[in-house]
């Protein structure tokens, strides 16, 4: 294919800026929707990829979040509900040279699309997944989603949802993900870092972004975004660093065996050395981090971690496919159509 480019790290058309990645389409989210910030941060990230826009593809399903590709001046596909991971998988296997992004919502990814997500994760294609989790179906106007907490009153759960929700990052690790991380719309700086880390990871990077749906689920994440609460509820992970949180890092998390517990560093009883040191390569510990999933609307609960939980090196699916193709060619040569058609046994009828 003559038009196929190898990503070369140096954009050929000058120094690109965020605005060069904004399409001419009017953005059609509700005023105040968290999706705007995420869009901005993704556009901010783009120039850092060192890629020409034509080598980037955004693929989405259906949902408010899934309209994302329309707003990016790259290649894009607004697919069908839940199938973006499968579309992206085909694209990435066929075109490993492209930078492929999947934008999806909690309904799109975890309800109808759950199977494709877990299979993408286990296969570990080099795809960057941005899961906009607003704990609601936005586009269809407010039904509960697989991440809505039990008891949530929505249009389809007038007496409160009886579903016990997924813990998306636990699901991802359980599905053998190589990279899972969490960020939120209301902390754009940290979000930017997370986006960059996602882009860097070779393999499926699964980034959950807490996103406020101002219309149908406003404040779902206020424990982590409210100025008055967030210090005590959010914990920012840094590789090789102890798990600290609270104003002035007053608190930490330590592991009692495999049971995480909060310790007060001001008490003098515990120091930073006693704390759980974050290790992005440790699958087991990453799992334990996902278990920090308390309902933080009441006090004294374990904080919710943000950051990279797990970043594991493992061959990507498309690499392995490429290698197999190369090996086949190496072993058998470029396929010879004539002899393939001929097969093992022929006979000739004379005229």
């Amino acid at each position, binding site marked *: 294919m003559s038009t196929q480019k190898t990503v070369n790290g140096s954009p050929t058309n000058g120094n690109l800026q965020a605005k060069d990645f904004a399409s001419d389409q009017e953005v059609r989210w509700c005023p105040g929707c968290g999706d705007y910030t995420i869009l901005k941060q993704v556009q901010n990230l783009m120039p850092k990829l060192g890629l020409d826009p034509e080598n980037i593809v955004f693929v989405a399903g259906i949902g408010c979040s899934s309209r994302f590709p329309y707003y990016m001046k790259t290649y894009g596909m607004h*697919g069908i509900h839940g199938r973006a991971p499968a579309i992206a998988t085909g694209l990435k296997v066929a075109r490993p040279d492209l930078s492929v992004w999947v934008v999806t919502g909690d309904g799109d990814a975890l309800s109808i699309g759950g199977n494709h997500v877990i299979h993408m994760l286990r296969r570990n294609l080099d795809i960057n997944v941005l899961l906009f989790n607003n704990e609601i179906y936005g586009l269809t106007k407010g039904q509960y989603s697989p991440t809505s907490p039990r008891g949530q009153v929505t249009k389809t759960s007038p007496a409160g949802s009886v579903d016990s929700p997924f813990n998306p990052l636990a699901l991802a690790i359980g599905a053998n993900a190589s990279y899972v991380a969490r960020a939120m719309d209301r902390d754009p700086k940290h979000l930017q870092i997370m986006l960059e880390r996602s882009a860097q990871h070779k393999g499926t990077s699964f980034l959950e972004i807490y996103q406020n749906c101002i219309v149908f689920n406003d404040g779902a994440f206020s424990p982590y975004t409210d100025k008055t609460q967030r210090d005590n509820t959010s914990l920012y992970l840094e590789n090789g660093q102890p798990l600290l949180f609270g104003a002035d890092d007053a608190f930490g998390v330590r592991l009692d065996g495999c049971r995480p517990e909060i310790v007060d560093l001001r008490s003098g009883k515990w120091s930073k050395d006693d704390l759980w040191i974050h290790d992005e390569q440790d699958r087991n510990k990453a799992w334990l981090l996902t278990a920090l999933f308390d309902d933080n609307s009441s006090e004294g609960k374990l904080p919710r971690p943000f950051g990279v939980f797990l970043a594991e090196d493992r061959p990507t699916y498309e690499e392995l496919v490429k290698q197999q193709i190369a090996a086949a060619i190496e072993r058998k040569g470029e*396929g010879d159509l004539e002899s393939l058609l*001929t097969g093992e046994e022929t006979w000739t009828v004379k005229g």
Partner: protein
Amino acid sequence: MSIIEKQKKEVTIRFAGDSGDGIQLTGSQFTSTTALSGNDLSTFPDYPAEIRAPAGTVAGVSGFQIHFGSKAIHTPGDMCDVLVVMNAAALKANLKFLKPGGIIIANTDGFGKKDLSLARFAPTDTPIKDAKRSGYIVIEIDVTKMTRESLKDTGLPLKDVDRSKNMFVLGVLYWLYSRPLDPTIQFLTRKFAKKPEIAEANIKALNDGFTYAIATELFSERYSVDAAPIEPGTYRNITGNDAIVLGIAAVAKRSEIPVFLGSYPITPASEILQGLSGLKNFGVTTFQAEDEIAAIASAIGASFGGSLGITTSSGPGIALKGEAIGLATMLELPLVIVNVQRAGPSTGLPTKTEQSDLLQAFYGRAGEAPVAILSASSPADCFEVTYEACRIAVEHMIPVMLLTDGYIANGAEPWRLPKIGDLKPIDPRYEKDRENGQDATPFLPYKRDENLVRPWAIPGTKGLAHRIGGLEKEHETGNISYDPDNHQKMTEMREKKRDIIANFIPDQEMDEGSETGKLLVLGWGSTYGSIKSAVFEAREEGLDVSSLHLRYLNPFPKNLEKLLNGFDKILVPEINRGQLSKILRDRYLLPVEGFNRVRGVPLTVSELKEKIVQMYNS
């Protein structure tokens, strides 16, 4: 006793035995030898529905039928002249396929007490005797004993000795039909190159079977079947599924468009995925997806990336793809969807054949979502039709549904190898880089050419970055549009684009008979052989019947209406409840009549001929 030598114009033989008896191998060896002898032929394997049913039971019986002759052969034959049975269960399951007065070659060792009981005969039953009483000619051979006798000096373990039983029987058959042993001897030598002692044993059994037939004067007649008038060329035997594999490989090599197959295993389509997964050096990438939806979605993703996306399945799996096919009609990307149809609604009879997904192909989606539809009429035909389906998908940027069925998929027939240079070139609509992407006039992803085809603008191409999706798109720009008139326009364009394909396919040709007349028999798909044979027979009897067989189902060839109007009556035989009939009645308002059977098996020539005669005379 002197043996009478007879010439036969055509013969049908059915081999049947336990799955462990090597029936398929026996059948395919007989086939090769027959092909090399210059006969025309058609074969059909009849696998048991269970993977490995208990040995000796009716459920475990495996069959293989071959129909060959010195004339043109189009079906594996309704009924057989010779039935070879290795055990009681095989007789039980297959006697219904034997012509009255036909020959049974029975392995008597397979009719012991235990065999009768496994086959659910009563202990007092005497099936062989009964068969004789019913007028069949029964040749009894204790194959096990004879084979053991033949190989007693080889020193091979009994297990291996017994495995050669099928070669002994084959030897007998080769004598009966005056066939050479050489091709099979060569085959055995090749196959067991690493175990020469096994090769030798098999060859000995084969030879001894042949001589046994002479020595014991088993038969009073011996037959020969002359070579058939066959188009000159080099031939091989091929199944429908294999022919699709080769068709796809040919597309990849000829067009240099990378091919991506996203598929999920399902009977009877799995062999296509299996075959292509071994062709990694042919520019074909295969992806075994987690389900049928992911399979087609991945193919769509690959097509967006500039590959030809293909997905293969059978009815129930195709049903799952409906929503994604709708997406593909909106995206206007190339996509080929192969449906190897099987019998029944739901799980149905997965190993049996039917043509009942035609209406699903036409209408099995939400909204007005036109796709092109092609069908293959025989195993060998699959190659060319597959190539055509891919060509149309690529050149018209449209999803193409290709219909075959279980009968074609597993059946085999001789295939004249095509000249690679004769394969039509395939011309993808790749749009080129625009160097001044920023300043140039904006790229219009939905600007159509004179055939309403939009450009294929693939990621990586400079200046063409654009977004597509399943929402209705504005004409030319491809932007989302809720405008009523635009929706009307785009809906019509998608339909018209499909209909324009009629300009790029050949006119419909008659298969048998003249272009006007009293009765036209019109078919599609795997009924080809039955229809052709039945019409041929009817014509031989002096009936002026014509037939034509459709490859292009949507759009139809442009001259079809004219042809249909040339006949007083039209008969449409189908293995369904009248699906093409419905389409034709709607389209042309002609009172076409259906001949419809859903018995999981091909239409027989005789029932069809009977219907033709009756309709002709009524």
